[in-house]
């Protein structure tokens, strides 16, 4: 285990262990810190626990009955597994984009403002503003600005995924978690989503899981390599890809396994 990045961390993971029901351990004590307003990529072979780690960060794992977490994760210094954590508040601060796009069967407009609505917001002007801003940030505005009231289910796969990004952005989170956001997209849509991610870097902290080495290299500032529930190597993307410190990392990124 190497270089823990200390520049201005927003999330710190300390000795995180995660057990699926039946005491199936998926994470074996992870220490990691995510710097603010940066893109961090999580890479690793299938089943190594990337998604599990990601879901721990906004406690989506709570939905699984009988799972268990040990260790600590702090968001801006506060333990999110503490006794007084408000999960709803946490999830507002840590948004998520899923591997398979999952827009609601509602209009594009309603999809974007969903997070605001459930927060009790009613201001129509704020809605309009946010919709435009978020869709622009997700690079979708030009394509859908004339059909905001149409069903989101009529969009293409790539558009839907960007809509999901816009939906996550609309609530102004601190962190956006993305679990293989491009895995179901064609190269062109992938390129657009990647563009979007790069644009968002200035305002949000982004943690992205990907199987695509090039993608990780293209979009991320830092990269963490996980293997069988352990963090193997973590560092600046440029360094990790050019000069990996650990043999396993090198084998993985050069495609010798995984």
């Amino acid at each position, binding site marked *: 285990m190497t270089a823990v990045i200390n520049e201005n961390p927003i999330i710190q993971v300390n000795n995180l262990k995660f057990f699926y029901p039946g005491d199936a351990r998926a994470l074996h004590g992870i220490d990691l810190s995510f710097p603010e307003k940066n893109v961090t990529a999580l890479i690793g072979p299938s089943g190594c626990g990337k998604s599990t780690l990601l879901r721990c960060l906004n406690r989506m794992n709570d939905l699984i009955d009988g799972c268990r977490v040990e260790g600590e994760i702090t968001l801006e210094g506060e333990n999110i597994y503490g*006794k007084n954590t408000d999960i709803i508040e946490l*999830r507002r601060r840590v948004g998520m984009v*899923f591997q398979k796009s*999952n827009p609601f069967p509602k209009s594009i407009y309603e999809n974007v403002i*969903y997070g605001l609505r*459930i927060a009790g917001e009613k201001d129509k002007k704020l809605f309009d503003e946010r919709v435009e801003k978020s869709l622009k940030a997700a690079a979708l505005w030009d394509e859908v600005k004339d059909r905001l009231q149409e*069903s989101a*289910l009529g969009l293409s796969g790539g558009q839907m995924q960007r809509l999901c990004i816009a939906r996550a952005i609309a609530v102004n989170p601190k962190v956006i978690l993305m679990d293989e956001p491009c895995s179901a997209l064609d190269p062109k849509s992938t390129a657009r989503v990647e563009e979007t991610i790069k644009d968002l870097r200035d305002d949000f902290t982004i943690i992205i899981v990907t199987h695509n080495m090039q993608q990780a290299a293209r979009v991320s500032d830092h990269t963490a390599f996980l293997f069988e529930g352990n963090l193997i190597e973590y560092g600046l993307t440029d360094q990790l890809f050019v000069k990996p410190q650990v043999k396993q990392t090198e084998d993985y990124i050069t495609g010798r396994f995984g």
Partner: protein
Amino acid sequence: MNPAFLKKVKRNDRIARWVITVGGMAIIFSVIFILILIAEVSLPLFLSPDKDLHASFQLEGRAAEEKILAMGVDEYLETGYRLDQAGRVNFFNIADGSAIDSLQLVSDTGSRRLITAQTYGRLNHMLVWDDGSVTIERVKFFPFFDEADDNQRSIRHELEHRAIFAPPSYGLPVKTMARVNDEGRQVRVDLFRSGIFQITIIEEEESLFGAGERVQESHQLEIDSVGEVTAMTLSTDGIKLYLGTSKGEILRWDLSEIDHPVLEETTQAFLDQREITALNMVFGDVSLIVGDQQGGVSTWFPVRDADVGWKLTQIHQLHGHAHAVQDVQPSPHDKSVLSIAADGINVSHMTSERFLVNIANGAEKIEAFAQSTRGNGIITLSDHGTVQSWKLDIPHPEVSLKTLFGKVWYEGYPEPTWAWQSSAGTDDYEPKLSLTPLIFGTLKGTFYAMLFAVPLAIFGAIYTSQFARPKFKGIIKPAVEVMAAIPTVIIGFLAALWLAPLIERSLGSMFLSLILVPAALMLSIALWQGARKLSPLKQVERGYEFLVIAPVIVLAVAIAAILGPGLEDWLFAGDLKQWLFNETGTRYDPRNCIIIAFAMGFAVIPIIFTISEDSLSNVPPSLKAASLALGASRWQTVWRVILPSASPGIFAGTMIGFGRAVGETMIVLMATGNTAIMDLSIFNGMRPLSANIAVEIPEAPVDGSLYRTLFLSAVILFIMTFIVNTVAEIVRQRLRAKYGRF
């Protein structure tokens, strides 16, 4: 792929498609076939009546001077007879007019002659003789199988002498009317040229020693009316007397007391003072038939009026004539009315006001007519001596769209109503076959059942699918599904014999618990939310809330049970039922809609629950995750994402439950009073279409009006469920297009 295999796959595909198509079609066809079968039985209700000229002939052996005063015909339409002035009854064959035989009236001495004759009831003839005496004679027919003659069926006839009335002391009357009832009470009414009017009543009076003693009373009266009396009728029992005048007045008398005939009222029936030309009583002696100068035919009976007491009121206006009405006659077996004028005989039905047939003999004028006692035939005699025999085919005269669905003013009712009361003990009962209260009953029962079942089932489904732990769901769902398998007979039985008395006893507690249980729930949920913030309780995991909720509900019910009687004492003077009746006029029926709501709800909940639960569980978890990841609470997720997405399924479940409730028979049959009332009150019962069919079909004579009306109600039930299902399907498709992508 191997070409042979490919071929096989394609062939299997074709076969499967074919089988599925045939199966689907077969279902559709059998449903349509059933509908056609049912509809076919009910259709004759709306067939128009038919008449058929069966024979037309001159009478054999009729002397030129023979004047025919009355005619009659047997109910098999085989033998007819005529009564002449000399008091002979000549029987003839109705097919060709050939003479059969001739009998002399028993009472006749041979020296008197008949002046007039009037037929009433079942071939009763009231005969007025030239010496002023009156006799009542009856002709009887008996079919039998003649053993001597190769078991040939033939009809024997017989004359019965029923009563004789002595001549009045004043000389010959202008108009006479006489009746005798089954106890031998004789009533004779005479009108003399001088305007004097005499009522004579003879009664058998029980003496102290048991021996009957005949008492006779005569009353001479002056008639106080503007016009002169032009028509007169007496009810068959001789109790009601009606007089009609040339100025359109009707006088109503009550002759029930031998020494005190009472003039009940004098009514100006027609404001234009048209002459009343004919009066008679409809079968059953309740309604009066009035024929007038202008050809109008109407029926009347006294209706209770708050100010003036009983007031003779026009109830039905029947099909009229272009000429003055000469005579009106009731049918001897139903509420049909015959009227004769220059344009022939009209047959109409009183209740339905339907004009059935007109019978006329071309240019020849009908002088006399007689109807068979079954109403299936009429013979007429024209001024040219032609006898015509008509067969009538009037299958369901009392049924029309108006009587089925509209308000009808039935005999003895204070106003027009919708009523279902298919039969009573007597022949002369006016059947009340309105389907409206039954349709109303179906909708009412369904409404209350759904009011109870839908929220419970849907909230239950939401809880089990979204909030409860999976293990708990694994118990709850099969348990509720087993509920659906309970025979409705058992539910109905429990509702009637256990629930109904229980609720009747603890009405106050029940209402109290309706308030207390939700209130306690709210309160405990609020407390729970607060308590969860405290650390030790946080360990109680989600999905076990019911462990806290269940005791709260039990407690609330217990409190309601304890406080209920006290509350009743305090607010409703001890008896809620009595209070209800006093304050709102609603009678508390122990088998009411509360029971129905519970019992039928019990039958409907499993269906709605299961279908709703399935569709809620089938909402893709990714949608739920998306919502939760955006910071939505579980309830927000359910309300904004899960429910809309599951709405097609929930809606379908509700509609299937609705259809089930509409068709539900056993529960309502057992748990309501089955009274066909039109009252939305939850405190009384109803009679829905389905239960009505179950109750009445065993009693309904095959192919009778009731039988066919019941089949019609089945068609309506069918159509109702069809509409519900179609609407449900359309709405479901819409919802699906809007929310679904799965």
